[in-house]
């Protein structure tokens, strides 16, 4: 058997397939430059090529492919939001995710688990019912369930009333899922590259070139590139990039920390979230418990870790799952979340002509990767903002028309 494999491997008939070709020199000009080679930027490039036939596109990534928040999130996919605008938007994303492995011919290990948002207070119960009714109205499967049903869906949970925050019920979101976040980025990258999109890593944008309020190109550490349109998708550094282009965003950059435990036998099927306890946890296909908490209490552009985070998170984890007390942490990390005041993204047009922004993804960016890629590609290709993105426009803050999703955020209350 091993010799058979060796023979197979050495034959020239089966060369190793390289998903993302090694980038060549930068061309002097592109139709579209996408700043940021994370999930959102790669997805936008793929849909520009696949849906709109625009392939003269360069993705400029200052680090390595999908090495920012795409690699640092907790991979939860859901659409149980609070506002009709939010539910409609994230629902489109969930439906795209369900078909994504087929569309990309790349296994993203999509795993539908069901998603429980625990409620520990009367206020949380009320918000859960509110979200369930808005969800059902828009065709999204969510229900408010009570402790007996919670215990049936997740028998591992500590349902005792002898704790600081007893579980009073939960918002049960049936389509809640997790996926392999790296594979989502690689799948988009491979399919975009196959259609002619260039992906340039280690290429940092250092300035935006403008003529009469119209973008004409970008300066990079590898020289100047002129372009027709620019899409910025840089997550935690959105404000810095917008500052180069010459406008301000309603964003504060705040670290969000997460961690995984050592691998355990599969025991936890649903995704468990508690807004009151600032915990969300799921068990990955490798058996690790993927855990996250609330964002840090102040702004910072550093991905350092803090003891406060681990102490707080573990205290609450042990209240929900006391039997995990002997389990060890395997690793931890942080990402830079670009938090908006209303917990919704900022997408679409900017004060600069032909400069488009995909930002404000705070703690909810991974689940929106397909829809934001598709819709931002549509925006860039047509120059018009699709209806589904209209509520998330930058100037909603000028007209005081925020899309308040704080009540549906897992963390940061």
């Amino acid at each position: 058997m091993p010799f058979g494999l060796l023979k197979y491997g050495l034959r020239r008939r089966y060369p190793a397939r390289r998903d993302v070709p090694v980038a060549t020199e930068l061309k002097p000009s592109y139709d579209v430059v996408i700043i940021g080679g994370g999930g959102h930027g790669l997805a936008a490039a793929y849909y520009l090529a696949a849906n709109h036939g625009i392939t003269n596109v360069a993705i400029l990534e200052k680090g390595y492919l999908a090495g920012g928040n795409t690699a640092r999130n907790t991979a939860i996919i859901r659409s149980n939001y609070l506002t009709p605008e939010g539910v409609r938007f994230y629902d489109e994303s969930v439906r795209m995710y369900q078909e994504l492995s087929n569309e990309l011919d790349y296994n993203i290990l999509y795993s539908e688990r069901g998603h429980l948002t625990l409620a520990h207070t009367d206020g949380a119960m009320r918000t859960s019912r509110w979200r369930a009714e808005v969800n059902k109205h828009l065709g999204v499967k969510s229900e408010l369930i009570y402790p007996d049903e919670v215990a049936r869906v997740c028998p591992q949970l500590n349902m005792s009333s002898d704790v600081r925050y007893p579980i009073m019920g939960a918002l049960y979101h049936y389509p809640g899922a997790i996926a392999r976040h790296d594979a989502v980025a690689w799948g988009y990258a491979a399919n975009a590259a196959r259609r002619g999109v260039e992906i340039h890593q280690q290429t940092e944008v250092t300035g935006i070139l403008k003529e009469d309020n119209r973008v004409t190109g970008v300066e990079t550490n590898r020289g100047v590139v002129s372009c027709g349109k620019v899409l910025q998708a840089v997550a935690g550094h959105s404000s810095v990039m917008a500052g180069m282009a010459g406008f301000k965003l309603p964003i504060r950059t705040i670290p969000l920390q997460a961690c995984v435990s050592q691998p355990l036998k599969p025991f936890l099927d649903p995704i468990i979230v508690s807004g009151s306890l600032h915990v969300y946890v799921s068990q990955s296909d490798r058996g690790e418990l993927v855990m996250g908490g609330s964002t840090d209490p102040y702004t910072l552009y550093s991905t350092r870790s803090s003891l406060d985070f681990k102490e707080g998170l573990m205290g609450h984890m042990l209240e929900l799952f006391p039997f995990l007390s002997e389990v060890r942490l395997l690793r931890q990390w942080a990402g830079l979340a670009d938090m908006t005041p209303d917990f919704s993204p900022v997408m679409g047009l900017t004060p600069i002509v032909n400069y488009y922004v995909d930002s404000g993804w705070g703690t909810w960016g991974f689940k929106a990767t397909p829809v934001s890629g598709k819709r931002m590609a549509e925006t860039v290709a047509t120059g018009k903002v699709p209806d589904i993105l209209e509520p998330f426009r930058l100037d909603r803050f000028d007209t005081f028309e925020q899309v308040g999703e704080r009540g549906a955020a897992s963390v940061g209350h």
Partner: protein
Amino acid sequence: MKIIHCPLNGPRNISEFVYGGEVVDMPDPASASDAEWADHVFLENNTRGVVREWWLHVATAYWFIAERDTANEEIVRTYPSSDIFKERVTFAAPDEEQGTS
């Protein structure tokens, strides 16, 4: 553990403090346009570098100012707000002010 030097209480654990945002000038509420007011309320400089910020020591309800580097979390300097706010700031609407004086 991260330590902040409170001008009133000396070095204390950062968990005793609450972040209050960047120190920015408030436009005159009576004369500011909607756009100016929205800018003041929602838009952020979100600077990567040394920023002058409001911080609160919760236990003593003491607001002060810290200069903090948002790139590496170094707290450069802390001082009482009276160092930069030399006069009392009133928030009353103009006609109210006249009525009570």
